[in-house]
């Protein structure tokens, strides 16, 4: 148990956020908006990190930008729009549903459906094959008779 708890601690300590700046917020809602925004925007330098996770200069600047815009009373959507106007959809960790990104959103579903169809088809084929292998009533009787005979001798 001790080891388990320790491992748990380790796991969480690794994903601790890099955003260390001290920020003062007017209210809890604004703080929440800040944290949700910085963990949804991609750091374009490090690409697989959010700006909350990254310590790159650009990530710092973008965090500052998000903070300042919140202070100016901008809402989350306005800030997301501001970022996409400059960096494109790539800055978003959750890409918007558009004709261009459709394959991202429905691709996995399509693959699951294909997989299920193949599974269904294969199991059905196997069922039919099993049925073909079944003996007629007459043969079944003969088989049992033969088996019993074998046990006697």
């Amino acid at each position, binding site marked *: 148990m001790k080891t388990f708890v320790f491992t748990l601690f380790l796991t969480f300590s690794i994903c601790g956020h890099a955003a260390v700046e001290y920020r003062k917020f007017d209210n809890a809602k604004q703080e929440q908006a800040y944290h949700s925004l910085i963990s949804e925007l991609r750091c*374009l330098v490090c690409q697989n990190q959010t700006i909350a996770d990254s310590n790159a200069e650009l990530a710092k600047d973008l965090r500052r930008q998000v903070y300042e815009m919140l202070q100016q009373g901008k809402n989350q959507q306005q800030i997301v729009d501001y970022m996409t106007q400059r960096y494109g959809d790539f800055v978003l960790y959750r890409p918007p549903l558009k004709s261009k990104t459709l394959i991202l959103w429905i691709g996995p579903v399509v693959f699951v459906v294909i997989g299920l169809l193949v599974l269904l088809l294969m199991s059905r084929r196997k069922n039919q094959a099993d049925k073909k292998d079944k003996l007629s009533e007459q043969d079944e009787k003969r088989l049992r008779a033969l088996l019993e005979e074998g046990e006697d001798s």
Partner: protein
Amino acid sequence: MLKYIVPLFLFAVLAVFLAIGLKLNPRDIPSPLIDKPAPHFSLPVLTEPSRKFSPEDLQGQVWMLNVWASWCVSCRSEHPVLNDFARKNPVIIVGLNYKDEPEAAKQWLAQLGNPYQVSVMDLEGRTGIDYGVYGVPETFVIDKKGIVRYKFTGPVSMKDVEQTLLPLINKLRAES
């Protein structure tokens, strides 16, 4: 027979996708600024901070905005190319000195040559954000109407100048 063809076909499809994926450059992020007006800025000139420069000053001309910094390693390899480009062609290159120390930047230009008509200081990187800068150096080509027509991320090579930038600038100059 189908038993062999189907997996082979699937493998071929997968291989093609992976091959395309290998050739794509993940750093090459399409700029949403293309065909949009160049974002406005008014920044102090590096050599003369009391003077301000803004893109409107070059209205009616085709020009390049090159984002550079003295701390940027790839800018160093790009610099001779820009010097050569500016020497051989009457091209306007404006430098956006991105998050740099003015003294270091001036020294850099004195040492390595100055291909820029003018360099402006973006000390806090705010204009950089407006231009969607994420990897220095970056180069934008802006047309006579002040519209961004092209963006190049990373160091420009001689080949890029000859095959892409110069033809594009000549084409844009011919536009009314």
